[in-house]
């Protein structure tokens, strides 16, 4: 028995409707609806190891703003996102902060780093 799964591709603003066919062993046999290679790889990842880019803020000491935006440099496992929200919430960083600065390596045991997504001067 093969299985079909449908979802919206989130790789780009087009938001293509994807249909993924899986065989009995859960291997992807077909991806339809995508309009680019990105969609194909998103589809494959989404059925096996769904991931999302995480974006939030961290508390800042002595900065021009009280919080600094951060993101996961690479998509992080979807199932870990709530753990990541707490890990990021617990963090407080001292200004100045540089864009791209790694604030948490391999957050919550994933392979994703949390990095600053802007420069933030100290006051």
């Amino acid at each position, binding site marked *: 028995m093969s299985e079909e799964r449908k*979802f*919206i*591709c*989130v*790789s*780009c*603003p*087009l*938001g293509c*409707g994807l249909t993924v066919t899986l065989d009995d062993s859960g291997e992807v046999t077909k991806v339809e609806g995508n*309009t680019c290679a990105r969609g194909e790889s998103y589809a494959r990842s989404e059925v096996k190891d769904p991931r*999302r*880019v*995480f*974006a*939030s*803020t961290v*508390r800042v000491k002595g900065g*021009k*703003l*009280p*919080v600094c*935006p*951060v*993101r996961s440099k690479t998509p992080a496992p*979807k199932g870990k*996102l709530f753990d990541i*929200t707490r890990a990021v*919430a617990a963090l407080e960083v001292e200004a100045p902060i540089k*864009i791209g600065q790694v604030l948490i390596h391999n957050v919550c045991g994933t392979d994703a780093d949390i990095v600053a*997504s*802007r*420069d933030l001067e100290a006051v």
Partner: protein
Amino acid sequence: MSGKIDVLIIGAGPAGVAAGIGARREGAENVVVLERDWDLGGILQQCIHPGFGLRTFKEELTGPEYMHRFIKQAHEEGVEFRTNTMVFQIDRDTNTVWTMNKERGIEALNPSSIVLTMGCRERPLGAIRIPGGRPSGIYTAGTAQRFVNMEGYMPGKRAVILGSGDIGLIMARRMIWEGATVEGVYEVMSWPGGLRRNIAQCLDDYGIPFHLRTTVTKIHGQDRLEGVTVAEVDDKMTPIPGTERYVECDTLLLAIGLIPENELSRMAGVDIHPVTGGPVVNDLLQTTNPAIFAAGNVVIVYDLVDNVSDEGLIAGANAAKFALGKIPSTAKRIPVKGGENVRLYSPQFVTGKTDSIIFMRVTHPIEKACKVFATADGEEIYSQRLRYARPGEMNEVKIKADKVQNVNSITIDIQPV
């Protein structure tokens, strides 16, 4: 820098920063961008989620990352920025721009050309007249976004979102990621206002209910918001009796649309288009005042920031040309008309001096193969197949200058095929 300003740009969001770059690259000497905030980047500084710049940079950046790259380029190009500087008046006869700044006080600037890049603002509650009380806890999604992402404060713990514009969808997820709950997103139309992928990754991922053809019909609470009544609507968008439901919440976020921000444009006396709400422009992004150009969401609300930056570059370059005396003030004006399913579009005039892109949104979604096309005096000059056309997304019509040299008017439309 001192001396006369060649190109003065109002607003250092994506359009304004790009306009600065465009103007410098075109050879304008003294290019100044005014920004009312202490920081450059405009609204994108609070859009901390990824989703920007895929077309320009081939990767998805967050708002601050996207602006970081452009601001860096602008500095390298020698664009001057003046922050904490607000324009509060433009005199229409002299094009004098009045600014205020705490250190410099009130100043009058008389540039050779002006680029309007003030962006847009959100439609407020008053625009939709919901009956009920006027408690605290009702914010536009963008105001809430600023509180959460820039100031570090939570507007509430339990939110309802009215309207499905992208900022509302993004804020739904953002509230969840801060430990708040989101009771649902309610959209009065039969289709979503924002991008499908944002429905998927901001609502579906977290099991947030999304209700089409449903709206908030009453606001409960006098001090702090206590709840809202929601109801389904009929084809005329009138609430259907008997479908009302009470939803408890302490926060109502509004994502009911964006309006170009044109107080200054009106003062400057440029014609404002009744449908777009932005200045009437030609393909040089020149308004009806030849010295004033406009780009980005101040003209028409775009869906992609890449387009805003592209338009900024064009407007900046043309403003520089004007300042350098390279644009004759009497350009041809070929009117562009919208077909049956065109809600709004820009530019509204084409000069034929340059290839151009007309951006347009449809009134009704077409969920099947269709084509976007342009005719000039009845003859097709552009056609492109699309898999669908949705009101939430901008479509492009590419006009080649050589196709419109001797035509009287251009019509654009999208129709099923």
